[in-house]
């Protein structure tokens, strides 16, 4: 068994695995996290391991555990690392109800946070990764943790889940992009995880206030176009993209209402990373 203790944003994880390649990828992708001190407690005790049955050798599988809870069906062994990352998302999204959790990419510049909620496959992770590689601080490519007490967003700075063609595109665009192993034929297609930048990880305990909400759509060949979105439309989309709006009940309703009263929402169409970066830069510039 390989074991790693990690502080990831506000959470403390213990990651165990009996698969060498998984352990190596943890060491690679979380290299910056591993330099940070860990608290004495563990919030999520997580394991990815091959089962103690014939499936360890015959068409080998992996299983994910949080403590002794096994929430998923087993996956083929070569998807072990993505399974670990998905499982970690599950841990946070299903237990951290002291935050409103949105399915969103989150980036920060000038102390101002842009949250980019979007559905699966809209290019949110790719855009988040591209912005991180263009000098933005990464909060998360998947989970926006919004404080229920104030206007703050809490960073996670975890590896970014990149899918299919985006892997090559990002690699050719940004020479400094660093990926873990590529897993083929997963539920989400071909998947690889990108290492978060050192700056982002070094500042992962630095919260920042939400500045605006941007709903991104990638449209091939389009010019970057930002258009304001009414609070009402934004409300519905924030609810649809939330992991725990239902659990929070009235508290969630008031939180979303507060957000929309204090920050603007936009729809954002883009095709080139440079344009996207320029447009988003303008949003966080001093007025």
């Amino acid at each position, binding site marked *: 068994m390989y074991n790693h203790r990690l502080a990831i944003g506000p959470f403390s994880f213990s990651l165990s695995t009996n698969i060498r390649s998984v352990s190596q990828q943890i060491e690679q992708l979380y290299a910056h996290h591993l330099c940070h001190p860990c*608290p*004495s*407690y563990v919030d999520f005790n997580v394991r990815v391991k091959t089962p103690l049955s014939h499936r360890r050798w015959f068409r080998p*599988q992996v299983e994910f555990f949080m403590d002794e809870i096994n929430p998923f*069906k087993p996956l083929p062994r070569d998807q072990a690392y993505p399974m670990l990352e998905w499982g970690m998302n599950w841990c946070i999204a299903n237990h951290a109800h*002291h935050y409103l959790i949105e399915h969103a990419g989150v980036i920060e510049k000038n102390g101002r946070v842009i949250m980019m909620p979007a559905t699966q496959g809209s290019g949110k992770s790719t855009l988040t990764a591209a912005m991180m590689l263009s000098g933005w601080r990464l909060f998360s490519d998947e989970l926006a943790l919004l404080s229920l007490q104030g206007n703050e967003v809490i960073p996670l700075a975890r590896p970014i889940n990149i899918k299919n063609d985006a892997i090559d595109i990002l690699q050719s665009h940004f020479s400094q992009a660093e990926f873990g192993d590529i897993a083929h034929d997963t539920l989400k297609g071909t998947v690889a995880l990108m290492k978060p930048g050192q700056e982002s990880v070094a500042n992962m305990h630095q919260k920042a206030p939400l500045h605006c909400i941007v709903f991104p759509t990638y449209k091939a060949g389009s010019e970057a176009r930002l258009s304001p979105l009414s609070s009402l439309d934004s409300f519905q989309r924030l609810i649809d993209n939330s992991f725990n709006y239902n*659990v929070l*009940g009235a508290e969630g309703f008031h939180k979303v209402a507060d957000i929309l009263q204090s920050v603007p929402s936009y729809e954002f169409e883009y095709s080139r990373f440079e344009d996207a970066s320029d447009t988003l830069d303008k949003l966080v510039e001093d007025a």
Partner: protein
Amino acid sequence: MSLLLDTLKAPHIVENFNDADWQILLSQARMANLIGRLAYRLFDTEKSKDIPEFVHWQLISAQKVALRQIQQARCELSSLSKLLDQRCQRWVLLKGAAYIARGLSVADGRSFSDIDILVDKTSIKRVEFSLLGEGWQRTQIDDYDDRYYRQWMHEIPPLKHSENRTVLDVHHNILPLTNRDCPEPERFETQRVELEDIGTLLTLTAEDLVIHSACHLFTESEFHNGLRDLSDLDMLFRHFSTANDHFVESVISRAGKLGLRGYVDLALYYCQKLLDTPINKQQRPPGAVLNFAFRHIFTPNHKSSRTWKRHIAATILYWRGHLLRMPLRLLIPHLMRKSFARLQQEKPV
């Protein structure tokens, strides 16, 4: 070592906890489906200031999940009651749904997944069909299981709501028809509760509610929620005893009349023994084998407290549960069929 049981009994012990103890407590509570109840128990005491931040948010989250489940159940009850009032003469809420309807503290933080109701056997077909027309669906089970439920059990196969995934268990009796203690369901006494926005609902009277919970727990063959259900009984005894000093006696005499005394005696013994439930009368333990089994099954199913004894206990109680449910001439073919089906299902994912 069960920190969970110790903490539920005496929450003040947490003042001496270190981080590792807290972590074990959370794990045990989560595995026993008791984390919501633990949250309420700890927040109720002055000791809530001793809860470290990393435990506090987990408990708060568990409390929020439990609150939401209660709200959802009330919502479900509201639409169910409209439908069922038209379709059958008498329908009674059982277990978790009854605790919620009666606003009992045992419902606070209690993990909740199924709504259980009791209807007259004669109207069960009609009830089932009207539910199927209202968004409830049959769960996927094979023909054998379906027939097994309908022929031998005290309920029809569970129904699941197509939108919100609530599970509804429709019972026509308290115990399986093949259990030798199976009483006439009409003999259970009911009590009305008025709920704002929902209307009048029926639950069992306090005594019968407790008797039913005891029968249910002590005829089980699988104890995933064993500890939670025992804690339910503990809380029910405590709650009803505050208003009525002779509550325990009246449960005992009522159980005697219904021919269900054995299950109530077990409930009283283990509540007193394991959860310090205040019961005046000293209870006698069951025989050595059963006592061994229950003592070890009422422990958190987590590696921090699990021993080989728990596995043996689970095996004993599995067989006991099945033997109570049906005589050997029915049980042996049933279990053979089940294990054969399981072998066939071992196919690659």
